[in-house]
Structures are given as C-alpha cells and as structure tokens.
C-alpha cells in the first residue's frame, strides 16, 4: 500500500503530498534536494535517512498492529457458533480503516518531518561547527599554501647544507688535531736536541755541526775534483 502520490499544499486534506521520506525518486530538477551534508557531518547520519527509517518503522507498526487486530477478530469469530460474518468481510473492514489511517498518517508525518528537518536536525547557515574553526582562523589560498610549502622545502635544504658543513668542519678539526700532534712531536725532537747540546756543554754544537756539515760538503766537492783530475791524467797517460 502506498500513500497518495499527489504533491500539493499542506493543510488541504487528501491533497497533501506524502512525506519526503515516502516520495518516489524524482528527477533532480523537479525537487530541490538539499543534501544536508553539514548536518550529516555533525550527526553522523543523513537527516533524510533518519526520517525515512522512522517513517518505515512507524508504517510497519501500523500495519502489524492492524493485522493483529484482524487476527484477534477472526479468532473471536471462530469461537462464535453460527456466525454470519466472513473473513473477507473483516478483511474489507481492515482495509477501509487502514486506508483512512494511512492517509492521516502520511499527512501528519509530513508535517512532523518538516519541523524536524527545519528546526531539529539542522544547522543554521551562520553556524560553524567547532571542529571547523580552523577554516575561519587560517584561511589560505592555493598560492599562499604553495608559498608556505616552498618555504619549508627551502628551509629543509638549508638545514641539510648546514649539517653537511658541520660534518666537514668537524672532520677538518679532527685532522688538524692529528697534524698538530705530529708537528708538535717534530718540534719536541728539535727541543730535545737543543737540550742535549746544552747538557753536554758542547758550546755551540749547532754551529760546529753546521760547520761539520759544510766541511763534509767541501770535502765531497774536493773529492769530486780530485777524481776528475786523476781521470784526465790517466787519459793523458794512455794517449802518450
């Protein structure tokens, strides 16, 4: 059983449209459908779906209860001997009453649905849900957002460069330590030599050593000269 299909003005009996929940699907242009997405975000369900669920449940209860009524009556009739009332008669009565009830049911439900969708299950246009506060606190265009991301990218790169620089500096610092240690060792050698000289009172050992080195060099030069000269003499002798 379906409700009356007429759409129309509320308040006129038998011409009120069935509840939104009960209407058959129409083309999008015929009915302006407000998806109530923001309300759905808040409630966790679509208000229209909620109304539909309630409509179907109420309708089911109406039919069920009527069936029970009918069942009780039929049973009572069975208990009465010589009863002239047939079950199809009772069925007709039920249908009559049900049709009447359904009409009022649809009309009343449509009113209830309207109130609930407009006043209870709705969020007024000027209201912003707390979870969306950031949207008004931090409005951000695509360009601004991109600029922010670019800046972060640049900062990250700079940071990486600084880290690399830090590594290089620390490495050099370590190397310097080693080199310095070597050089200081060398210097220490020289210092020890000086100390030895001083201890053994060789006067100016350095000067004598230097003189010795020079003398050796001179000797080497003289030796070379002598060798050359003797070679020449030998050659001369051979020729003679």
């Amino acid at each position, binding site marked *: 059983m379906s409700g009356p299909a007429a759409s129309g003005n509320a308040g006129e009996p038998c011409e009120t449209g069935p509840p939104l929940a009960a209407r058959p699907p129409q083309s999008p242009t015929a009915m302006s459908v407000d998806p109530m997405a*923001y309300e759905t975000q808040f409630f*966790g369900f679509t208000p229209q779906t*909620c109304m539909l669920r*309630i409509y179907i449940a109420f309708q089911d*209860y*109406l039919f*069920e*209860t009527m069936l029970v*009524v009918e069942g009780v*009556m039929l049973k*009572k*009739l069975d208990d*009465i001997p010589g009863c002239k*009332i047939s079950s199809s*008669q*009772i069925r007709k*009565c*039920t249908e009559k*009453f049900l049709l*009447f*009830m359904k009409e*009022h*049911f649809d009309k*009343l*439900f449509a009113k209830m649905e309207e*109130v*609930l969708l407009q*006043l*209870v299950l709705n969020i007024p*246009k*000027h*209201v*912003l849900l707390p979870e*969306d506060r*950031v*949207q008004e*606190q*931090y409005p*951000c265009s*695509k360009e601004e*957002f991109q600029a*922010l991301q670019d800046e*972060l990218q640049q*900062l*990250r790169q700079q*940071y990486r460069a*600084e*880290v690399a620089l*830090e590594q290089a*500096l*620390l490495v050099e*610092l370590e190397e*310097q330590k080693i*080199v*310095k240690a070597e*050089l200081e060792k060398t*210097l220490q050698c*020289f210092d020890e030599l000086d100390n030895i000289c001083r201890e053994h009172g060789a006067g100016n050992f*350095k000067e004598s*050593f230097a003189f010795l080195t020079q003398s050796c060099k001179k000797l080497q030069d003289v030796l070379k000269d002598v060798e050359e000269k003797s070679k020449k003499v030998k050659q001369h002798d051979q020729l003679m």
Partner: protein
Amino acid sequence: APGRAQLFSTVVDTFLEKLVTAGSYQRFANCYRCFYKLQPQLTRSIYDQFISQLQASIKEEIEEVKNEGNLEELFNSLDKIVEEAKDREEPAWRPSGIPEQDVRSALVPYLRKHRAHLRRALRHKEERNGRVAESVLMGRDSIAELQQLIQARQQAWQ
C-alpha cells in the same frame, strides 16, 4: 526557546496524539460495524489494545533511534553551538566538497609550527657552525705557526 531534544519529543508526541485522534473509536467501530454489532465490548477492548500497542511501538522506536544516534547528547551539543553563534550574521564556512582545498586551513597551523621549528634549528646550526668554523681557522693558523717554527729550526741546523 525549547532545546532540540525537547522539540523532538514534543513533535513526536503531537504526531501520536493527532494520529490517535484521527483513528478514533468511532471511526474504528464504524469500519468494523459488523463486528461491533456482534461484540461491542470486545470491539472497545480490541481498539484500546490497538491504540496502546501502536503508541508503545512508536515510542520504543523513537527511543531506539535516540539511543543509537546518541541524539540527546548531540541535540544538547548543537543547541550550545548555535547559542554561541547567536551574534553572528554572515553565513559560515561550509565544506567545498573538494578535500584538497578544505584541508589547507587545517594544515596551516601545523606547517607554521614546523616552519618556526625549522627556522630555530637552522639558526642554532648556523651559530654553532660559526663557532666551529672559527676554531678551524684558528687551528689552521696554529698549524701554520708550528710549520714556521719547524722550518726555522731546520734552517738553524743547516
């Protein structure tokens, strides 16, 4: 003004009331006239049971819907939110339906924090590196100095 929870209850109660009024006993008896003539008292009792059963089922369904959806709490919460916004006039922001666009504002505070953190870290690194660079330069100087000293000694021993 009544809260949403109150309004919800009132509206449902009104619906039931009017439905019961429409489905009056007179109407019922009129439809089931044949049975009524036979068993008037039983008709009355059946009708009473019908009405009470219908009301009970409907009220139970409403309770179930309220519990499942946690409606009581949500209604009160929404009332509060609407109350806090009562001085506003302009339409508020609504989701654009484009997630990439809507998520920007949500990310901005985090990105800004991240940026501040990076700037701070970068500054610290730069400062530290400045100091270490100074040590390195000083180290180069002292090495040069040592080299000179050694050269001088070398010369002296020539």
